[in-house]
């Protein structure tokens, strides 16, 4: 008996992606996004998810797939990460698919660039490929290091802003 895994699937610039269904919290749309100036371009902004502030990350930007057309508002795919919730902005949300593990293949050698960094592998579906997105890799690929930030460090004790703790 082959193991089966459920994936939430979605589309980004025509590509079919999937994330393990247990990592997806919910799908939201229409949330008002507050932009974060000076943030990396992948960060579209912040949304209010029932009182929680969630960072919205544009997968188009992460995958370098160009701008989404204005008449196609992005859908928030809210996922669990090590650092709490995050919102991945996708073009369109598809079904939950149950897939045999034995159709899995590691990323093809020919895959380059961001796709290679952010994709854990592919499932061969009838007629198309499902790309498995590595949400942690997406999150870890985004960080800001502002030079000259004067965060004083005591010996052995990093002293960040308490507001952020």
């Amino acid at each position, binding site marked *: 008996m082959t193991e089966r895994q459920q994936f939430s699937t979605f589309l980004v610039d025509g590509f079919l992606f999937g994330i393990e269904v247990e990592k997806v919290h919910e799908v939201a749309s229409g949330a008002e996004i*507050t932009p974060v100036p000076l943030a990396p371009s992948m960060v579209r902004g912040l949304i209010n998810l029932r009182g929680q502030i969630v960072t919205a990350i544009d997968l188009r930007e992460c995958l370098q797939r160009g701008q989404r057309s204005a008449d196609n508002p992005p859908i928030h795919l809210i996922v669990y990460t090590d650092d709490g919730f995050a919102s991945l902005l996708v073009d369109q949300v598809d079904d939950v698919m149950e897939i045999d593990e034995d159709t899995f293949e590691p990323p093809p050698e020919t895959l380059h660039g961001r796709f290679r960094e952010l994709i854990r592998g592919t499932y061969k579906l009838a007629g198309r490929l499902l790309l498995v997105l590595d949400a942690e890799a997406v999150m870890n690929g985004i960080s*800001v290091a502002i030079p000259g930030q004067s965060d004083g460090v005591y010996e052995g004790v990093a002293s960040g802003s308490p507001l952020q703790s």
Partner: protein
Amino acid sequence: MRDAPDPVCEAGLEREHMDDMGAIVKEFILESGENLDQLDRDLVELEKNPTDGNTLASIFRTIHSIKGASGFLGFSKLGAITHVGESLLSRLRDGSLVINPQIANRLLALMDGLRQMLSHIDKTGVEGDADYSALVEDLTHLQQIEPTAAPPATPPKRLPGTSSSAAAQPIDLNDETVTETALPQKEARATTDERNLDAPPERKETQNITSSQGNVRVDVRQLDVLMNLVGELVLARNEILQISSIHEDSALVSILQHLNFITTELQEGIMKTRMQPIDNVWNKFPRMVRDLAFQRGKKIRLEMEGNATELDKILIEAIKDPLMHVVRNSIDHGLETPDKRALVGKSAEGRLLLRAFHEGGQVNIEISDDGAGINIPEVKRKALERGLLTSDQARLMDDQEVMKLIFLPGFSTSEKITDISGRGVGMDVVKTNIERIGGKISIQSEPGQGTTLKIRIPLTLTIIPALIVTAGGDRYAIPQVNVLELVRLEEDEIGTGIEKIQNSSVYRLRGDLLPLVWLNVELNVENRPRDTCAAAGIEIVNIIVLRADGNKFGLVVDGVEDIQEIVVKALGKQLRGIATFAGATIMGDGTVALILDVVGLALHARVLAKLREQKPAAEERPEAQRFEEIEKLLLFEGPDDTRMAISLDFVTRLQEFASSSIERTGSQEVVQYRGTILPLERIATLLPERRLRPRRSKSKAEMNETLQAVIYSKDGRSGALVVGRILDTVEQNISNRCPPSRKGVLASAVIQGRVTEILDPEVICAGLSSLSHANQALVEAKV
């Protein structure tokens, strides 16, 4: 059919039992940790008063209960080590040994060992295989030492305090009620039946009950969850209040008032649960001070007042390291060695006082010592050596200003780098960290008398009042604690109010130059160039005067909304690197707004770095002394062989023109320069001449000479000032100045041995608009 126990059920029971054990072990570790902290303090206390039977009894009891629990829980190694310690303590207790620094050191080392083992148990569940045999050997060895000075006058099987004396004097232990209530009993028993002392587990239990009566141990995370929920409630209330302002329904309004009241009460109540006494930080100090004093060969008496002063848990965490650093500094730099103190007639023992109290909704913490005080000349010398100020600045500074130098980055007066302090990451980090939590730090010092450091911090951080502003179409929250005042410039004030020094704008706020920062420019949300601020397009400029790191700057925003209580929420880790933001909050309408980190913003805008450079000399000078800041001057010859100077900051370049190239538009002299037409001013016409009939200095023969001109610019407009002859540029503080001799002159001063008039750039720049009209009128009148 229940002939065999259900395996599933059994496993379940087993797990349950394990969980129970786990909980007991956790409880044991937590409690022992607190007990060890108390032991540290008690040991230090005992070392000071070796005959204090109460303290000794308390130490003995605590160690004994740790030993008992270790045996019960099966931590044999822990039990064995505490046993050795207990044996040594019993020698102290029966009076056959008297505590000395050596014994105290080993006992403190024992506490450290126990701490290590406990933390290992906490992490892994087992004792670990660290080797404590050397410690055990030392402790055993100390017991074998013959009783030295201890006179066996009292029977060896008695407590040194004896029950009668302990009962007679009122017990003045102030920190633990348990000790007070438990002691008399215990001592009474001790005299009647010595062996009972070795079996106090029941008593231990009763103590537990007394200490926890009315108290519940709550997981801090649980409190954080509650705090978050209250935060949500506050936000929900704000949303409803906003909606209710649209609908006018009296029933709704009255319910809302009730909701509002309850929410506020609840918020305060929950906030109180997060309050912790400052003693949670301070209880580490007796041990630390003792060890450091020992190391440095100093004698120090630590006094603490207001241990029960409460503040938010987060703040307690945040002030821990800064306070430690300050205390270390006092011991290392402030307090002198006993022989040095004797030389100046002070008692051999230095005094270090920590004081905490509430005042005006803030927590005040003072750290004072009666040491040598801050060595002003030494601080100056170091600051000069490290290039933190110029010798001219140093000469002008008063003592208070010099003291503030120790807060500058890269300042450290310690000759050698010690492990205690003097790493050069000293007081500036302390200051930054205190200011990060909205606090302030100030310093007072009297040479030979001591130093006092005062810290003021707010009670809580999670819900803060903030000013809501807009920039580039979005809202931002500025913590109210950073906001000093709001300045609103109407259309006609903008042109004159905002001035430019090279590339940066300043606003003159009651005589102080306030560097201006455009929020939309800094955040890159709108590309409005700074230069056009004075252009006609903008009707109103809102300046928020902010305090960052002790410096002031003005933040120009598009709009100012109101002051609101906001709930600070952390940003995701992808955004934490952006120093400009301290977090985010949810507004009444449900949208998210970012909270500005004022210090981070100032650093981002480089206004802080700039301020830090010029700060020593420029801080809060009255208007009359403004020109002292002028450091770089351009020297030139004025009319009639006089000497004049102007600040180089206003000069964009020097240019020579043939006098034949001067043209006229109307009555205004102009000259073509790089494709633009520059208005031309002459010193002689610009300044009111004192002479009634000005000497005719220019003849027709001079028409073909080359004129030297200074090109200056202001608000994007340039002009040329014809001067006699460019002489030099000088960099100096004008200390020997006289009041201005006439209008248009800031001051007269002796520069390079000559009396020199320093021109007011304002007057020259005013020539770009108004003065040219005035001149025109003047010329017309003459004609």
